[in-house]
């Protein structure tokens, strides 16, 4: 006592807004129902609020940026918030998808009262561009309900808390639909009015779960909380509402993320020497960028410079949907770097893994691939080189077409007339949708010098060798 609750009104949108430089009205959409779930302040100004039909929302803001609801994603983001809150508070509990609860009593002394704590938290929220309602309450549930109404009830006084609670409208008490309907039909509108009715009489009229719920709000029944434990790693993700096409566009979000890393390291009183930047694309495997500093480091600026150089050298493979920064190696400060030359890599598994890691370290993450079939009729697209990180599922179709083992990187013009025709024509026409349309008749033929060639004629009557059979 008291409990402090942070309610993030539109966490997903705040999260995305952080990765964007220019503000735009944004809304989270419910899958399937075409209704708005969350709206950012800009969108609210235009008249969009939770529950607005998508059609109306788009009439109000034709340029609305729409984000699909994703509970897992929001839960991840919520955990990121727990992470920084952990620096200020103790005994944190997660209330997915949008709330954090913390025990304010245990840290009150540390801050010299709740007001200074509140200011600290507001400042921290401001730095992170997060919108949250902060409230205190006598019980975890009370704090949560008050926060979710959006009321400003940040107080230390138990009387004030009780008064706020009494004024709480019943529809904000998180009752089930039927109970709420019953109470409304009784003409009751606030929790206070409910409290004034004789307890036994009320008990006859409400479901046992409802009673437990109300007793928990009022503190008449224990409500144990599970405390969240911070993970050892640092992982942070930035999502873009619209895909970023140039590496320049990543820097803004990167800067933010690295600043968070810096303060995380600061708080841990540790450094790191390796970062893993994962860039997520829409239809492709994510690309990985591993950066090692020359020595232990914690300054965002230093990391940023390194990453900037790396990004300049390696252009993006595809538009980036989200960035993820991972740090799993932490070094205590003031430890001599020379003792850490080879790192404390725990990767001492099989020889294969060792080899792969060595090769990757030597040649770079992207240089190592393995082959896999791809479902496409065009021969040059019927295989793929996948990154090793991705688990390969065995999805080979049982009727793979007859193809030469050696497929040339580029078809070469056929310079001699074949001696013998052994198969064909096999006509392939497809890929019109991605601008790489092919229209070819393939044949298997023996060339005068004895090679077995896979040749084709294209729609301009040109002849090419595309591969060699053994």
């Amino acid at each position, binding site marked *: 006592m008291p409990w402090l609750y942070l309610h993030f009104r539109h966490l997903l949108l705040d999260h995305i807004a952080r990765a964007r430089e220019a503000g735009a009205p944004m809304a989270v*959409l419910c899958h399937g129902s*075409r209704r708005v779930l969350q709206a950012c302040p800009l969108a609210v100004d*235009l*008249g969009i609020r939770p529950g*607005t039909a*998508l*059609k*109306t929302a*788009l*009439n*109000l803001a*034709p340029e*609305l940026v*729409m984000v*699909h609801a994703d509970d897992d994603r929001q839960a991840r983001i919520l955990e990121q918030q727990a992470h920084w809150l952990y620096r200020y508070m103790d005994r944190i509990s997660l209330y997915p998808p949008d709330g954090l609860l913390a025990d304010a009593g245990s840290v009150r002394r540390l801050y010299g009262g709740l007001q200074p704590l509140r200011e600290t938290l507001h400042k921290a929220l401001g730095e992170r561009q997060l919108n949250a309602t902060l409230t205190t309450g006598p019980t975890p549930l009370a704090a949560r309900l008050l926060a979710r109404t959006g009321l400003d009830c940040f107080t230390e006084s138990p009387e004030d808390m009780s008064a706020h609670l009494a004024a709480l409208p019943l529809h904000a008490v998180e009752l089930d639909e039927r109970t709420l309907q*019953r109470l*409304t*039909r*009784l*003409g009751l509108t606030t929790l206070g009015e409910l409290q004034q*009715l*004789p*307890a*036994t*009489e*009320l*008990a*006859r*009229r*409400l*479901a*046992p779960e409802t*009673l*437990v719920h109300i007793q928990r709000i009022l503190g008449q029944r224990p409500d144990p909380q599970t405390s969240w434990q911070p993970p050892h790693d640092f992982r942070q993700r930035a999502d873009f509402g619209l895909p970023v096409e140039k590496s320049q566009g990543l820097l803004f979000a990167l800067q933010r993320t690295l600043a968070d890393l810096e303060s995380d390291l600061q708080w841990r009183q540790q450094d790191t020497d390796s970062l893993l930047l994962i860039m997520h694309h829409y*239809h492709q495997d994510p690309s990985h960028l591993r950066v090692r500093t020359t020595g232990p480091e914690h300054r965002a600026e230093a990391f940023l410079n390194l990453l900037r150089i790396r990004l300049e050298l390696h252009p993006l493979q595809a538009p980036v949907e989200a960035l993820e920064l991972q740090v799993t190696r932490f070094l205590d400060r003031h430890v001599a770097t020379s003792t850490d030359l080879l790192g404390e890599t725990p990767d001492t598994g099989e020889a294969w893994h060792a080899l792969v890691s060595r090769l990757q370290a030597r040649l770079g993450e992207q240089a190592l691939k393995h082959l896999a079939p*791809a*479902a*496409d*009729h065009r021969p040059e697209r019927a295989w793929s080189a996948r990154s090793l990180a991705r688990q390969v599922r065995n999805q080979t*179709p*049982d*009727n793979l*077409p*007859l193809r030469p083992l050696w497929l040339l990187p580029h078809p070469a013009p056929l310079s001699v007339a074949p001696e013998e025709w052994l*198969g064909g*024509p*096999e*006509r*392939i*026409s*497809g890929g*019109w*949708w*991605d*601008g790489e349309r092919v229209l070819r*008749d393939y044949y298997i033929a023996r060339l005068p010098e004895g090679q077995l060639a896979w040749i084709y004629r294209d729609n301009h009557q040109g002849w090419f060798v595309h591969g060699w059979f053994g």
Partner: protein
Amino acid sequence: MTCKTMSYAELHCFSNFTFLTGASHPHELAGQALANGYRALAITDACSVAGIPRAWQALRDSDVALITGSYFKLEPTTPNAPGLRLILLACTRQGYGQLCQLITLGRRRAPKGQYQLFPEDLDTQPLEDCLCLWLPPSPHEVGFTGARQSGQWLRDRFPHRFWLAASRTLESGEEQHLHRIRTLARQLERPVVATGHVHMHNRQRQPLQDVLTAIRHNTSLEQAGHRLFQNGERYLRPLPVIKRLFPVEWINETVAIAERCTFRPGELRYEYPGDLVPPGQTPAGWLEVLTRQGEQHRFPEGTPPPIQALIRKELDLIHEMEYEHYFLTIHDIVSFARHQGILCQGRGSAANSAVCYCLGITEVDPRQIELLFERFISKDRDEPPDIDVDFEHERREEVIQYIYQRYGRERAALAATVIRYRPRSAIRDVGKALGFDPAQVEQLLNGIDWRDRETDWRGQILDKGLTRHKRVANQFFTLVNTLLGFPRHLSQHVGGFVISSGPLSQLVPTENAAMADRTVIQWDKDDLESLGLMKVDVLALGMLTAIRKSLGLISETKGEPFTLQDVPREDKATYDMLTTGDSIGVFQVESRAQINMLPRLRPEKFYDLVIEVAIVRPGPIQGDMVHPYLKRKHGLEAVTYPNEEVRGVLERTLGVPIFQEQVIKLAMVAAGFTAGEADQLRRAMAAWKSHGDLTVFREKLIRGMRERGHSEDFAERLYHQICGFGGYGFPESHAASFALLVYVSAWIKRHHPAAFYCGLLNSQPMGFYSPSQLIQDARRHDVSVLPVDVNHSHWDYTLEDPGHLRVGLRQIRGLSRQGAEALCQQRPPGGYTSVQQLRQRTGLLQRDLELLAGANALEAISGHRHQSYWELLGHEEAAPLWVSEHRDDQGYIPESDKVSLPAPSEGQNVLADYASQGLTLQRHPLALLREQGHLRNCLNAQQLKTAEPNRPVQVAGLVTGRQRPGSASGVTFVTLEDEFGNINVVVWLNTARQQRKPLLTSRLLHVKGIVEREGDIVHIMAGKLTDLSHLIQTLPVPSRDFQ
């Protein structure tokens, strides 16, 4: 054999009636087969003959023989084996019947849109007159032995009627497959036949076929991978290509097979059910007997000579066209309805004839309106007459059941409606296939102003920039454009019945509809028409229910039966009422646009109502014919005709074309269209919305009219009117039938208002207005409305004493009908005295009791709604959890604990009423707000009637409607409701754009604007809009938005 002498018949061809598989329309395939010089074309859709009529229309007069067939994939015998795949072709009419029966069997077994057939079905179903083409499985599907076994099995079922189908798709593995087919053919000792495995009429359709495949698999092209075909070879190939690809024997087999398939859809002769003619009578004689009987009833004082002549003329025409059965069938259905006391009314071509008046099919008196019968049954167009009959919507099911019972389910079925791709669905599906973000596609769709003439949407899309690649954009447009009008699935027609003399399944397959126990045939209305089959439309109309109920109440009041026929004709008071725009609840003329039209048109006689019904429609509005008509009607413009022929067409509408058939007639007399051309125009108009194109007629129309001395302006307007009629065709005969119901409902409203509203409220949901709006209107007409009460209400609304309307229990949301009826039946003479007694006598469920308390229906026996509800809830045992912690209570309630809850305030009552019934008899919320001083300076609806025009005013009201009609570009009409009535607000496009938020989200809206007045019609031209919704936070007010 040269190509010239070579013959080929394509025997395996999917049209787009194999939904999301075939990429060409049947008529496109037919056209291509013709152009390629094929001997024959079989349309073989998957377990369906739905594509046949359209292909037949294209090929009936050509040298290409149309073969009816169907493709089947049978259920596998073991889970992992592929099912047998085969094509059955109908040799004869009998074979066609067998095919239909098999399709019906497979379709009826499976949920809507699917089919299920087992190998055993081929044993039990007669298929002697069908040929079988087996599509052997490929080597990677089944081993050779397995393939041979299934081939043998199938061959034994079709002795001498079995072939192995081989196609050349030039895909990988084809050589092995063909090798296998050859071996199988040798071993099975049956010939191989060449087929194209056709999915499209030409190769250019490959992208669309790929898109359809992706849509079918619910994926994008990128992800579709091997589910797409490897190439675009599944098209109707030119003969030289076929010659190059197949051995000549295989080609010759196609022709041999085609020659054995002699059945043509033209052989399908419709036989009218003979049941209705008594033995010893001819159809013509019996129709005449019935007509004469009706005549005596209709004209007890003797038929006037002109009508007698008319009846004779009509009967002769009916006889000449052999339509007697059709009229007899309708008469039979209508008589059934009359005997059951179900109100009905016929409309459509042929319905408003003197014969139909005598037969009781219509109430439109031939003396009242003179419609030319020939216009509805045309001798030139050999197509069946069309009569739609509307029945009371709550009782139409009885009529449907009667038809099933009378003719049996084997002989009667509903027609299908082909649901086709419209712009929205096409854009969504193609967007998905191309991998566009669905949310962005929605954004794009929303940006398109659909009210802009539909033809312009492509231009609008271009500006939105869904993709930056011009190539993708072009593909997108082309694909969407091609996909438009493609059939997506078969649905149930609203009420079109096909009744046949023999078993229907010999005529056309039936399949399951979405609704349980409903089946539809595989053809739609147009298909039936093109095959010359008869259809009877059995439709549902809410207003007929309301009128019947109102007439019943009037009968009760009068103490004698009062029927539709007893409503006095041409009552001045009724027309006077309509002229003031007082028409809420009246059939057809209750919409805002109609209410505004009434005072301008000033109806004085029946025919004015016919025009009133037809004039507020896209056709006349887009043709700009409304103002000229009004001017002429009120004598502000001379009524002139360019020539006598035009006068003949337009005289009844003062020289201004209003009705659809006038426009078509004008195309003939004023633009020189031949009868055939005019008929094409009529069909194109009907089809315009889905896939038609009217531009081809434009030039001909305008040139023709100019040559005949009409002004270009008039010609242009006529063309626009034709476009406006597209899809919403509204012919005079329909308008006349509707006008009758307009008149009758208006008469009841004028002379028996309480019965009028009572009938309407007991027929909900129907019509344009909510019960709340109807009750407000009732009170404005001095009907006193009494609240719902456990001791007075019945399920339905009732009349208590003259002019008192009691709210029915039906108005309480969620209340069970069973509970309500128990309540009424068990009610003691003096009424219930306590909740206890109510509970005991009726055994009402707690849920129903709570709903009654919530509706304040228990006030008389247990106090106000809060207290009643508290008492009701106390009935349940206390939750043990709580009691255990208050142990001293011992379970009894000390007197001091008797709780008395505060009585609801007026505001609380209003909210609770809305929540429970969607309406309140308390004061209107606006009255409360006005009293509380929230709406200072606002005029109410009453004051507005006398407000000075062109002056600034302020108004406020609950938003009950937002509309943006297609005919008024960019204008939004907002309807506000206050305690005195409705206020019409007009918001211009610019104002709307600047104030989107209040316009679109307000539930209570405050408007500053200028009064505009035209006669009795007052509009507010909106300036500043302010959202006041916070004043009515929890009041649920539904608004009809943009429908």
